[in-house]
């Protein structure tokens, strides 16, 4: 097990190295000199030269790449061109809404997807099953930003149940800030519940036909106990996998949703960085998100081995 984990970790590092390389060279393809953008049209060539030296842009690309990679490996993602601070600081400032949004969304998605999937499997082929399948399919094909706008209009503007947008006034308490996340998290949770529903259903169908379920039933164990204690527990590994996968997907979904709800998270940071071509921020965010993605995948693998001793063998 340790050997396979070490191997997984090794390929994770390779993937991260490739992501960093790809991000670096793709960014260099971009037209226009970021220093020229930063200094505006009043700048003299000498100013531009000086700033290029500050950012190391006067060195050959390969040298820049090696230097940059060394910094990234040490966790330094460079300086934001527009925000006048290190990219890591900018990311850290924005991490709270994104973190809680992802956490709440996955909670919503799980609370919707797991019970729906179980019901669908238990009443396979019946009306409930068809309804759940149809709704899951629909949810997966709704653009989150559109659902967000509809929810804002209905639940926030018309019914006044939730704040319309933003993350509370400056100095708002944590509870108040988190209150702003319920509606966006519901949107993301609904849109991303489909995968969990489908996998829960499939995984439950697999185990519901197993011998021990039949044995339990013949012993006279209640149907509820069979489904939850016997079947669901054994169906858990694929469900945990897909929940992990969904968390990784949510990171991407959060980008668009944060924009709709005006949440000052990583997604919002990236979108504004893209719109004003703040390349260090874009690079840094991409690398941070990719690192998060591979780490989530590794964690999911680790959790498996804890939940299901058979995987350890």
């Amino acid at each position: 097990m340790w050997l396979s984990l070490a191997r997984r970790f090794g390929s994770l590092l390779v993937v991260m190295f490739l992501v960093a390389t790809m991000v670096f060279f793709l960014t260099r393809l971009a037209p226009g000199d970021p220093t020229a953008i930063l200094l505006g049209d009043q700048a003299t060539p000498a100013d531009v030269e000086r700033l290029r030296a500050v950012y190391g842009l006067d060195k050959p690309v390969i040298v820049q790449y090696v230097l940059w990679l060394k910094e990234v490996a040490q966790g330094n993602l460079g300086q934001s061109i527009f925000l006048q601070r290190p990219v890591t600081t900018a990311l850290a400032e924005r991490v709270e809404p994104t973190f809680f949004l992802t956490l709440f969304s996955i909670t919503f998605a799980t609370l919707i997807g797991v019970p729906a999937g179980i019901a669908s499997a238990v009443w396979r082929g019946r009306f409930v099953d068809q309804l759940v399948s149809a709704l899951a399919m629909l949810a997966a094909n709704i653009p989150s930003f559109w659902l967000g706008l509809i929810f804002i209009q209905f639940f926030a503007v018309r019914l006044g149940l939730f704040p319309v947008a933003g993350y509370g006034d400056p100095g708002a308490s944590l509870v108040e800030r988190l209150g702003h996340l319920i509606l966006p998290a519901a949107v993301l949770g609904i849109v991303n519940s489909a995968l969990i529903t489908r996998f829960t259903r499939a995984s439950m169908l697999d185990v519901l036909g197993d011998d021990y379920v039949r044995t339990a039933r013949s012993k006279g164990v209640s149907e509820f106990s069979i489904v939850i204690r016997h079947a669901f527990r054994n169906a858990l590994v694929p469900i945990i996998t897909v929940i992990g996968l969904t968390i990784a997907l949510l990171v991407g979904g959060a980008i668009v949703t944060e924009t709709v709800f005006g949440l000052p998270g990583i997604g919002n940071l990236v979108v504004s960085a893209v719109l004003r071509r703040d390349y260090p921020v874009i690079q840094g965010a991409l690398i941070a998100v990719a690192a998060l993605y591979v780490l989530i995948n590794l964690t999911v693998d680790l959790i498996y081995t804890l939940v299901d001793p058979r995987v350890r063998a």
Partner: protein
Amino acid sequence: MASPTLTFLKRLFRRKLVLAAALVLFVLAVAAIFAPWIAPYDPGALRVIRRLKPPSELNWLGTDEFGRDVLSRIIFGARASLGIGASVVAISIAVGSAIGLVAGYFRHLDPPIMRMVDAVMALPDILLAIFLVAILGSSTFNVIFALAIVYTPRVVRVVRASALVVREQPFVEAARSIGASTPRILFRHILANVTSPVLVQATFIFAYAVLAEAGLSFLGAGVPPEVPTWGEMISSAQQYADQAFWTVLFPGLAIVLAALSLQVVGDGLRDMLDPKLRKAL
């Protein structure tokens, strides 16, 4: 007369839902192709006097903040949205199949190719897409190019997985033993046997691409604003959502309808072509 295509379609459309979805796609495709003849108004025509009017006999789906007809813009939007989706599918299937075949057939090339695929897939679709569009500049072509890069790795994975299996089949060995060249084996024998999963993947990528393009346009990193797309319509309408909800509602329904129909057809294809999966998903 029963041509294979006809038999195939008959079996596919035996399920009413798949047939309905295919009809929706057909209608959308016709609307996209014949937009100038079908649309009741010029999609760019400004009539400020009739701005933000609710749906009526004159404008079936209402008008937007410039008095432009929402229905006409949705019909023209189908052009950009579906056209981009179809182009993304074509490119990612062509490129992804070629790379996937190579990875699945030549063992020593498999690890480097698959690590690259992992790297691209470690970035969320929409994040990678806005990054690429930001670098390349926003134009219809660049949006297609960016989304093709995002979805090619999926095709690579599917084709490679199938190619790994097909490679070991006796008929491939037979072909090799009678002296068939490597390209012939790759394209004639292996590619021909991985078309089913690729076809299924194509419909799903089409659906994802339609959704992703809408997301990009919504974020302002999509096609230039003068091209009407469903995502851009929602984006510019959002500040009028309070007064004119139809300007947000209808373009979104068009996106849902298109993506959902593609997904239903894709599911139908998968169920038919791969009976093993029917039980599981």
